[in-house]
């Protein structure tokens, strides 16, 4: 029983990072109805910029965080302009493929910046963890979970309490009608992208600081973990992204504990496949397949 709960806690810890990444995905998908495959790689490049500052300039950990997040946002802006803003609105597949070739580009930039395979990444806290009874929690994981919950609250306030959020939801429901209200979908999309990149940068920093290392594979990993978590919870649903992320983390932790590492990823894909086949809208989705799954539904 202790093992079970400890494993669940570990799963929630890693799951909160998945949830953050899925949150960024959801934000962009909700407003654009398009998939940004280079979301993970842009976080990776931001992290490489951070670790470059750490390795060559011996930057302080807080500065590494700033460089990572700022780098991710800058790369996100580049991707948005090139792969989404510049491409015709009705060409969603072109945008996706474009974001994929830019992914290849970002990976090469990262290897030019730092040609090795693995680099150290400064940790967030020197103190290790906290004990609650028989359970052990690493401080980094507690922080990640807290940040994920904080971001969820911030995002909900942003979407439902601000003028920007109103415009964002209007664009995501009908960008044509939003134009008649004097809202500029181009501008809203851009800022949604920037905000999603910011969330991604924060998620990337927390994850890598816990791992204390970064590799170019982080891009692939983040993109597909984020996609899976988003689809698991329900496409375009913000609480769904959180639930999907946490669930993915817990599933992975348990299968790893009971069935071993080889089965871990397999189970995650199997669960998602079954969810898609049996309940295509995702767990918190609408349960029906719609070409334009409605985004940002209330909890």
């Amino acid at each position: 029983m202790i093992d079970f709960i400890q494993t669940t806690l570990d799963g929630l810890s890693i799951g909160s990072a998945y949830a953050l990444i899925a949150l960024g995905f959801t934000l962009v998908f909700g407003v654009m109805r398009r998939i940004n495959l280079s979301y993970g790689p842009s976080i990776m490049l931001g992290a490489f910029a951070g670790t470059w500052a750490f390795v060559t300039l011996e930057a302080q950990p807080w500065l590494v965080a700033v460089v990572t997040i700022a780098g991710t946002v800058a790369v996100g802006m580049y991707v948005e302009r090139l792969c989404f803003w510049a491409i015709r609105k009705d060409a969603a597949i072109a945008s996706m493929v474009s974001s994929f070739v830019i992914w290849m580009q970002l990976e090469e930039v990262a290897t030019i910046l730092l040609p090795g395979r693995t680099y150290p990444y400064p940790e967030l806290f020197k103190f290790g963890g906290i004990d609650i009874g028989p359970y052990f929690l690493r401080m980094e994981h507690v922080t990640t979970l807290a940040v994920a919950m904080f971001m969820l609250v911030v995002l909900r306030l942003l979407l439902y309490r601000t003028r920007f959020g109103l415009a964002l939801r209007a664009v995501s429901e009908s960008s044509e009608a939003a134009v008649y209200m004097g809202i500029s979908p181009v501008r809203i999309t851009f800022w949604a992208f920037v905000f999603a990149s910011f969330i991604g940068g924060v998620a990337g920093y927390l994850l890598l600081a816990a791992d204390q290392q970064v590799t170019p594979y982080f891009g692939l990993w983040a993109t597909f973990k984020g996609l899976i978590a988003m689809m698991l919870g329900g496409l375009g649903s913000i609480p769904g992204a959180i639930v999907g992320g946490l669930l993915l983390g817990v599933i992975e932790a348990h299968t790893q504990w009971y069935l071993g590492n080889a089965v871990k990823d397999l189970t995650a894909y199997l669960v998602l496949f079954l969810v898609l086949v049996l309940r295509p809208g995702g767990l918190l989705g609408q349960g029906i397949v719609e070409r334009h799954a409605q985004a940002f539904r209330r909890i």
Partner: protein
Amino acid sequence: MSEYAISIASNMGMIAFVALSAYVVLVVGEISFGQQAYFGIGAYVSGMATAMWGWPFGFALVLGSCVAAIAAFAVGALTLRLRGLYFAIATLCFAEMIRLGLNSIHVQVEIDGEPVGPDGAEGFGDIRWMFEHDVTTLEYMFIIYALLGAVLVVLLLVERSNLGAVIRMIGQDPLLARSQGIDVGTCKLLVIVFSGMIAGLGGCLYAHFATYIEPNVFNVMLGVHALAYGLIGGLGTALGPIIGVVLDIGFLEGVRAIQGYRMIAFGGLVAILLIIMPRGILDEVRIHHIKRWLRRQ
């Protein structure tokens, strides 16, 4: 031809199979992130057939592509209700399950005192049909291109037929197709099975060319590349994905001047291409113009 040129040309030919299989799914209006799985299934099954069971090469090709087609049928039937991103991610899940599953498959038999067969993540070596039958790489390249040519001819004939028109209509507007009395589900399933078969055939060829295969060759990167080729070359004709493959592999290997920066150059060029031509170089409209021009000549 130098060995290097032959290996590049053979590679282009084999990757073209995956690109074509991703393309036919795109034409019917869906995005698949999973065509690499059929490629992998074809590679493993045909490799086992020749290396472990001593089957003739031709039978192994048929078996490999048929097993891949059966797998595609299963996936297609399960995901028939799904559209758009749901379909894309479901196919991704399937492909990753296959890849991870191959990581833990250990089926080996002893041949001449050596274990032969898939050995999980260690891969599957000694698929030595080419050496055992004294087939040169040049001859093998001709086999690849003969089969690729056959597949292309079939695809181009289908595209000219009524079935081709029906498939394009489903891709453009499935509701309209349904209102015309077309059985959309069956047509889609047919296309998906055919796409699995093409990719499987490519995989068979790949296994015997490479002689060593491992699960990680068939990762999602291969599938997304295959998708990209179709979109670069154009969605208007089956020649589109071929153009995409030639541009990518030919360009990357051909232009030595950009060594070390080639993905930066290639990524940028393709991104700009997609801004100007969102459905690729040879899209439907351009194909229509070309056909009209040819008819006038």
